């Protein structure tokens, strides 16, 4: 059974929720209950007597380090998808706050669970800085296909054949073929892997061979006929039907179609969109309990930066749900419970030795990066890390590839600290220095992701190991050995240490998904 479980607001649902949350925050700022420190970045966690008691931040405008002390610390710092360099995340998204907590002893849970979103605009060149997501909602009406025959693929790639002119019987609507019950609406991981399979078979439809079609022609026909009928137009001619149908599509997806045309220069009403999967969301994150508290007392993690809600495979709209639920409905109650035990603890002073020590460590890291004065830019290292991650820890993974990736990342890390070039000074507005600190953390995070992916000898949601699949190419879980959360403890210059939290299913029965 399929049920409606979310809302849709002109392809900007998330943005509108964000504006609502921002306005609610602004109200609290006006009331004096919140002070907002714009353009400040957390660079370390301060712990006193085993509890999280504050943070060290860098004022990004002046470059000065500042200390903030509190009875507890809450991180709501987002996911780590930019470890892949190319993703649908905003450019500023990074793992630094969460990773600094890991370096202080917090556990990182299920880091290898990465969501690769099937409907993104394909990569256009080496200079590519990020990938643009076309909303999931498009799959409600769009049909995904590639040509059946490689000759047609060649003709389309070379521009000798327009996709819309290829006859129906020479197209492979592979999602509808493989998953007749769900068709184009299969979950993201399934749709993404299916796109990879056809492209690996040489059927990708753009020059790089890494794209499939998302076609609205049928939906335009269907809506056009229904509109004509509703308006009482008898024997409407084909052109009129298309016009009416396009109007309906425009009301539903107008802004998305416009965005697509701006980026690619192609009109998706007339010619099918090209899409390819891209990194979109990270289900893994800081390990937390039901109160959203990490294993470090007094350190809480909310939203994408924790691992809690999505298992191995997040469903559409669930990240919005988590952001709202964690922030509005969980943490206001659980933090109080934590603070109750601290009710007689006087306010924490930033003059405590722990603050001086951590601040010095942050200062040393910043200085070290600035003093390397090597020959390769931060961006170059980030791109190389992204390639390693995408090739070996992306849509499909193997033990061999992952083992190789681990060595490659370690080598890249040591090269980084010996050859990176970071311009400018510490005590000034310096976006390159900000990036340099983040990329250093992404490298260690990437290594932990690879360790997790290598240890999980099964395929499960966003984690697909080629060695573990059914004869039909579907993910093959190993519930007997892997029904647990893998929470990793970082050790400098050693392998990470695994802690297992068993998953007990009390109300529902553990089953294998089938969309056939």
């Amino acid at each position, binding site marked *: 059974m399929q049920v409606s479980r979310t809302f849709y607001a002109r392809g900007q649902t998330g943005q509108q929720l964000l504006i609502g949350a921002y306005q609610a925050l602004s109200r609290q700022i006006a009331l004096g209950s919140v002070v907002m420190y714009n353009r400040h970045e957390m660079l370390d966690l301060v712990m006193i007597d085993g509890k999280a008691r504050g943070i060290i931040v860098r004022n990004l405008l002046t470059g000065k380090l500042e200390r903030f002390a509190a009875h507890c610390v809450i991180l709501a710092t987002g996911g780590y998808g930019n470890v892949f360099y190319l993703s649908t995340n905003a450019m500023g998204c990074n793992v630094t706050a969460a990773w600094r907590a890991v370096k202080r002893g917090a556990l990182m849970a299920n880091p290898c669970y990465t969501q690769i979103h099937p409907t993104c605009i394909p990569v256009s060149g080496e*200079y590519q800085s990020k990938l643009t997501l076309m909303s999931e909602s498009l799959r409600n009406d769009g049909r995904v296909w590639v040509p059946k025959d490689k000759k047609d693929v060649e003709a389309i790639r070379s521009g000798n054949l327009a996709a819309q002119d290829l006859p129906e019987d020479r197209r492979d609507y592979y999602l509808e073929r493989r998953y007749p019950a769900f068709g184009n609406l299969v979950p993201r991981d399934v749709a993404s892997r299916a796109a990879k399979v056809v492209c690996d078979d040489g059927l990708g439809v753009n020059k790089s061979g890494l794209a499939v079609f998302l076609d609205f022609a049928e939906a335009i026909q269907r809506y056009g006929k229904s509109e004509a009928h509703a308006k009482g137009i008898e024997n409407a001619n084909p052109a009129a039907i298309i016009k009416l149908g396009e109007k309906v599509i425009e009301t539903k997806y107008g802004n998305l179609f416009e965005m697509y045309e701006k980026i690619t220069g192609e009109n998706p009403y007339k010619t099918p969109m090209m899409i390819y999967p891209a990194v979109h969301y990270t289900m893994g994150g800081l390990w937390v309990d039901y109160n959203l508290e990490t294993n470090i007392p007094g350190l809480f993690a909310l939203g994408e930066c924790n691992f809690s809600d999505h298992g191995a495979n997040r469903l559409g709209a669930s990240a919005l749900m988590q952001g709202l639920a964690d922030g509005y409905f969980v943490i206001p109650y659980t933090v109080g419970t934590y603070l109750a035990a601290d009710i007689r603890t006087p306010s924490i002073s930033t003059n405590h030795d722990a603050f001086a020590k951590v601040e010095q460590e942050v200062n040393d890291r910043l200085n070290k990066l600035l003093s390397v004065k090597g020959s390769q830019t931060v961006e170059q290292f980030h791109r190389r890390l992204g390639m390693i991650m995408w090739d070996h820890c992306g849509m499909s993974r193997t033990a061999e590839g992952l083992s190789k990736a681990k060595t490659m990342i370690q080598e890249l890390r040591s090269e980084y600290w010996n050859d990176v070039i970071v311009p400018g000074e510490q005590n000034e507005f310096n976006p390159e220095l900000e990036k340099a600190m983040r990329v250093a953390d992404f490298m260690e995070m990437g290594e932990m992701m690879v360790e997790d992916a290598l240890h999980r000898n099964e395929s499960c949601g966003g984690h697909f190991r080629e060695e573990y699949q059914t004869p039909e190419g579907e993910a093959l879980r190993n519930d007997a050995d892997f029904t647990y959360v893998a929470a990793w403890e970082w050790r400098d210059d050693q392998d990470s240490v695994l802690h297992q939290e068993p998953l007990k299913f009390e109300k529902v029965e553990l089953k294998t998904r089938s969309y056939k």
Partner: protein
Amino acid sequence: MKLTLKIWRQKNTNSHGKFENYQITADTHMSFLEMLDVLNQDLIEQGKDPVAFEHDCREGICGACGVVIDGRPHGVLKGTTTCQLHMRFFKDGDTITIEPWRASAFPVIKDLVVDRSAFDRIIQAGGYVSVNTGQAQDGNAIPIERDTAAKAFDAAACIGCGACVAACPNASAMLFVSAKVSHLFHLPQGKVEDESRVMSMVTQMDKEGFGNCSNVYACEAECPKEISVENIALMNRRFIKSSLTSNK
């Protein structure tokens, strides 16, 4: 394509800026910001100071990016943010002038980066609904007529980038403020505080040093979200009504 970039360089808020020229080879498929990325990589490798510019989502929804390109905020393309502008809209051999938003209420931080926290303070003055989240009636339980909802939504599409201010000869923030006023005014939850909201937001807007509206409509022409100046008319009506009837 070979381009000459004439870019505003300014070390910090207090220093004087000036234009500097750069030569660059770009690809037509690049986005405008990717072209600046390529320039910055070159500058860093040559040991020079990269050009500071602001950006985040790079898909036209966060409002972080925004520079004046050949005299037009976000460039020549209608309804588009800087990050969505692609190089195929330029020609080989072009000289492109790139400047920050120019408004005294938006001081330059460095090069093309300006401080837009004045907008935050305007929102803090009343751009919200005074109900604690989690306690209000479910929004979906109050039916709203489709056209009214659409008007609210059109205004709510504002991303707060500040292009309206940069476009206006008076550096007025009327389009931004009116979009926020109008967004909340059209919805039943926002109507309750309409009078006090419009007064406080306009007062804060004036305090921040934004200019007044003289009906040039450049704001609407340059707005990447195509927010209509009808919102300004609505805000003016609400403002006059509340100044006549308010007890404050």
